[in-house]
Every structure is written in structure tokens, then in C-alpha cells.
């Protein structure tokens, strides 16, 4: 089977609120699929239904080849999950947390010990194994949770906002682990996020979710074409008539939407800037024109969201919602 997850009109209602509204997505085996959306979009609700701890109001899904309603226990055996909120025992050590989890999944003895060692080494926490988790940093706890979710060799990994509330450096660290998991363990990963950069950097496919509905789906690049083109801006040094010829040549050669020349700068709109840029240099070289400076900008997924909904996914990095969540987490950590 080609797909790891297929949802069929998956729906969840809380009273009169439809938190997830007829979602139909297909996630290929071995890919990282991102569910991108603002706070309250229904990401966590979707994941909880797929992970069989929340019953859909309507519709169903096939996860790892099993129906979540008919064979929830088969699904549970094949998935690993890192929840949005921390779910680690803070008064136990990293090793004890892993051991308890392993026993819960039926692992034991020497095999379990070796597996714990392998995974704690993978996330760089083996030296910390005998230290109580309350002394770990937020990033270390996240890594421990990721290691824990991998104990039983799941086929599919769910990561619900894996880098929420982490500082930028730690986020990059966690990203590295996620990429490595996909590469080395050939796992299918479904992650949710409301960080555009996270979705862009990590995901093969992204579905944008808002008010419980999927409003767009595709590779990050495909999604960006919804907004329009990459814009390339070039500054050259040569005589004005030569520039005129250069501009005409570019227009003739490239599949561009517009080419403009003003104030000593050429601006052009193209579908895919990285592909076009070498061609531009080649033409310039042949005409003996020196390019002083070349810049290009691509639309972000946030622009896509803005275009589709008229709102931004988030106002700015470190909004008050994040702040409140982090406070909540800190309170938890102090216990």
C-alpha cells in the first residue's frame, strides 16, 4: 500500500463547534506531512482522532492499514506520538521514563535496555539518563519525548507542534532529529505546526488547515504558486542601450510574467527563481555584462495563508498566545 494515512470525511464536533470539518487527506509512506494552521484550527483534534484517543463525530481514517474505528488497537501498535503538551514524568529519570514506556508497549529485558540505549544516544541524552527530568531543559524534554515515541519501532510518527515554545537554536536541533528519523528509520511523519518556516523546511507535503477545513494542499513550492511568482531583482553595470538589449533578450529567453527596467535595476517575475538564475548569468556573460547584485524573494506560506483567508497565521514571532502557553508549561515544570 502506498499511503500511510487516508482520512475519509474526518469530522469532530464539540457541541455546536465543528473543530474538524470533513478532512480528506492522503499521506504517502515515508514522507513528512505537515498540518499547518493557526491556533484553534483543529490540528490537535485531528491528530487525536488519528491516534485513536478521540472518537470522530463523523467519517473515519485508515492509519497504517487499519481503520481507526474498527481496529484501534492495531493502529495503536503501529504509531508513535509526541503530544503537544509535555507528558513526561518529571520526578523520574530519563531512563525510568523510557523503561516504563517500553514495558507499556510490551518490550522487556535486555532488548528493552539496548533499545533505550540506542535511542537515548540518538538524541544525545545517554549521559543524562539517570538524572531526574525536572532538571532537563525544554529542548531536552522534547528530545526525550521523541526518543520515547520511537521505542516500539512505530511505522508512523505523530508530532504535535514539536518545537512549540523552544528557542530558535533548539528548534533547529529538533528539526535535525526529525529529518534524521525520516532518513534513517524510513518513517512516515505527520507533524502539526503553526510556524511557516518549520512547515517549509521539514515537510514534503503541507496541508493548510483553518477553522477545521483543509483550505490548500501540496508541496510547499506548489502552495506558493497560489500566491504568484518569485521576484528577481538585478543590478548591472554597462551602457543604457546595452541594458535595453539585455532586457529584451531576457524577455525573449525566459518564461517570465513581467520584466521591468527602472532606476538602473531590472525586476522580473518568474515561476521558479533558482532555475532561472543560472540562465540569467549565462546571458549576461555572453553579452559581457557584469551583474553587480542579484536578489530574489519567494512568497512564504504565510503569504499563501494571507491570500486564502485574508488573515496571517500569526501576527509576529513570539505572540502573546505563545507567551501564555510557555507560561503554562513553566508552571507545570515548577511542580
Amino acid at each position: 500500500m502506498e499511503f500511510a494515512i487516508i482520512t475519509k470525511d474526518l469530522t469532530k464536533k464539540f457541541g455546536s463547534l465543528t473543530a474538524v470539518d470533513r478532512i480528506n487527506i492522503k499521506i504517502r509512506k515515508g514522507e513528512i506531512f505537515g498540518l499547518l494552521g493557526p491556533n484553534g484550527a483543529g490540528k490537535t483534534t485531528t491528530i487525536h482522532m488519528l491516534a485513536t484517543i478521540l472518537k470522530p463525530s463523523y467519517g473515519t481514517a485508515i492509519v497504517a492499514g487499519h481503520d481507526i474505528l474498527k481496529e484501534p488497537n492495531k493502529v495503536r501498535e503501529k504509531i508513535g506520538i509526541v503530544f503537544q503538551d509535555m507528558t513526561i514524568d518529571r520526578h523520574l529519570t530519563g531512563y525510568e521514563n523510557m523503561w516504563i514506556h517500553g514495558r507499556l508497549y510490551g518490550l522487556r529485558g535486555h532488548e528493552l535496555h539496548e533499545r533505550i540505549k540506542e535511542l537515548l544516544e540518538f538524541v544525545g541524552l545517554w549521559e543524562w539518563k539517570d538524572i531526574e527530568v525536572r532538571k532537563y531543559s525544554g529542548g531536552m524534554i522534547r528530545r526525550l519525548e521523541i526518543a520515547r515515541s520511537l521505542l516500539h519501532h512505530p511505522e508512523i510518527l505523530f508530532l504535535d507542534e514539536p518545537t512549540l515554545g523552544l528557542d530558535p537554536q533548539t528548534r533547529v536541533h529538533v528539526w535535525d532529529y526529525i529529518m534524521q528519523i525520516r532518513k534513517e528509520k524510513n518513517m512516515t511523519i505527520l507533524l502539526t505546526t503553526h510556524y511557516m518556516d518549520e512547515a517549509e523546511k521539514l515537510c514534503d507535503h503541507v496541508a493548510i488547515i483553518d477553522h477545521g477545513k483543509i483550505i490548500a494542499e501540496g508541496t510547499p513550492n506548489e502552495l506558493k504558486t497560489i500566491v504568484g511568482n518569485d521576484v528577481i531583482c538585478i543590478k548591472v553595470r554597462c551602457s543604457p542601450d546595452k541594458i535595453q538589449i539585455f532586457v529584451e533578450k531576457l524577455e525573449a529567453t525566459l518564461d517570465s510574467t513581467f520584466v521591468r527596467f527602472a532606476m538602473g535595476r531590472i525586476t522580473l517575475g518568474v515561476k521558479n527563481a533558482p532555475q532561472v538564475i543560472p540562465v540569467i548569468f549565462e546571458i549576461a556573460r555572453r553579452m559581457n555584462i557584469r551583474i553587480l547584485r542579484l536578489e530574489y524573494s519567494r512568497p512564504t506560506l504565510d503569504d499563501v495563508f494571507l491570500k486564502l483567508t485574508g488573515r496571517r497565521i500569526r501576527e509576529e514571532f513570539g505572540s502573546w498566545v505563545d507567551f501564555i502557553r510557555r507560561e503554562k508549561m513553566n508552571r507545570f515544570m515548577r511542580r
Partner: protein
Amino acid sequence: MKWIGAFIAMWYRQVKQFLRAKPRLIGTFLHPIFWLLFFGIGFAGAFREGMSQAIFMGLSYLEFFLPGIAMMGVFTGAFMSGISVIWDKEFGYLKVVLVSPASRKASILGRIIGDSTIVVFQSVVLLLLGYLLVPSMNLINIPLYICIAFLVSISFAGIGVTIATKMQTIEGFQLIVNIITLPLMFLSGIFYPIHVAPDWIQPIILANPLTYGVDAARFVLVGKSYFNILLDIALLGVLSMILIFLTMYQFEKATIG
């Protein structure tokens, strides 16, 4: 035999977590010790030689009180163990258990037996300390006492956990526990012999499972009881079985949202 893993995991988790939480560990140890020392010894002083024997089934007050106070620790400790369920609900660990393929029945059983292990162990330590004050205690019967204490603990931990799975907040749970604990504690023959209570209270005392736990503990430790020890044990056994099955069944159905 897959359920064994979940049972051991949760048993280990409860015990380990308890041993780690030093303040709670010390607190639950000290509480019954204070009762024994400051209430028991003080009260014992109120009865002159011979006088207490007449009231307390032929026992000195401390002989009478020690098995009761040990049972009280078991009872309150077991009841409060429901708190960890709410705790887990609030901080998400319950989701971790529910999302695993592990048997939910086994996991909740592991939890209850884990909590029971702790409270029973604590009460045994209390008894050993109490031995210094009550040298007439039958130390050989401690294993029997442990069995009785386990039955009591399992019953009340079952009740606590069942209430906890229905509750949303720790405050709400604590309120209910407080409302239930005090009457059950005072109407169980821990502090005074049950026959001295007025008639209208007698039915409550007889309906209180703790009464039989205290009675049985008193029999094995200092040799005096109201009821036949076999009756005590049979009642506790049946009750604990019923409660544990109810608890397991009820937890099985638990999903979030």
C-alpha cells in the same frame, strides 16, 4: 501475557514516583505517627490502669488504637491515590497510556496495586514503630495484617480512582474526599469501640467497610475483635473484588473528550 507489561509499568511508576517525592513521602509517614504519639499517648493517659480495659475490649488504649491508626493510614492513603489520576489527566500522561496498545484494565490495576503497596508498606513501618509503645503486639501476624491491609487499600483506591476518572479538577476531588473521609474514619471503630456509639449511628458503622478492616487488624495484632475474623475477611474480599472490577471496567471506557 501482554497485560503483565502494562501492569508492571504502572506499578513501577507509582512506587518510583512516590519514593522520589520526598515531601509527600515524609508527610504521609509523619501524619499517622503524630496521631499515634500526640493523640494516642495523650488519650491513653486519660484512662487509669484498669479503666481502659473496661471500655476498650480489655485492651489498653494504645493497644486498641494502634491497629486502628495503621488502618487509617491505609484508608486515607489509598483514597487519595485517585489524585494521581486527575494529575495525569491534567498533564496528559493519561493520553500516553490510552494511546498505547497496552491493556487499560491492566494499567489501572497496576496503578492501584502500586499505590496499595506504598500505603501498606507505610502502615507496616508505623506498626513496627508502634511496637515500642505496644510490646504486646503479635509481630508474627504482620503478614496476615498485610493481607488485610491490602484488601482495604485496594477497595478504597478503587473508589478513589473511580471518583477521580469522573472529576475534572484536583480541588473537586479533594472536596469529595474530605467530605467522605472524616465520617468514615470516625465511624469505623478506630478511635472508640463501636458498641458505645448511639443506635442511630450503628447502621452507618456497620455499612462502613473500614469497620471490618479495623476489626480484622485489631484481631490479628492484639487479639480482640467484635466480629468473626473470617466474616471480616470475607466481606473485605468480596468488596475489593467488586470494586476492582468496577474500576477496571469504568477506566476501560475512558477516552478523552
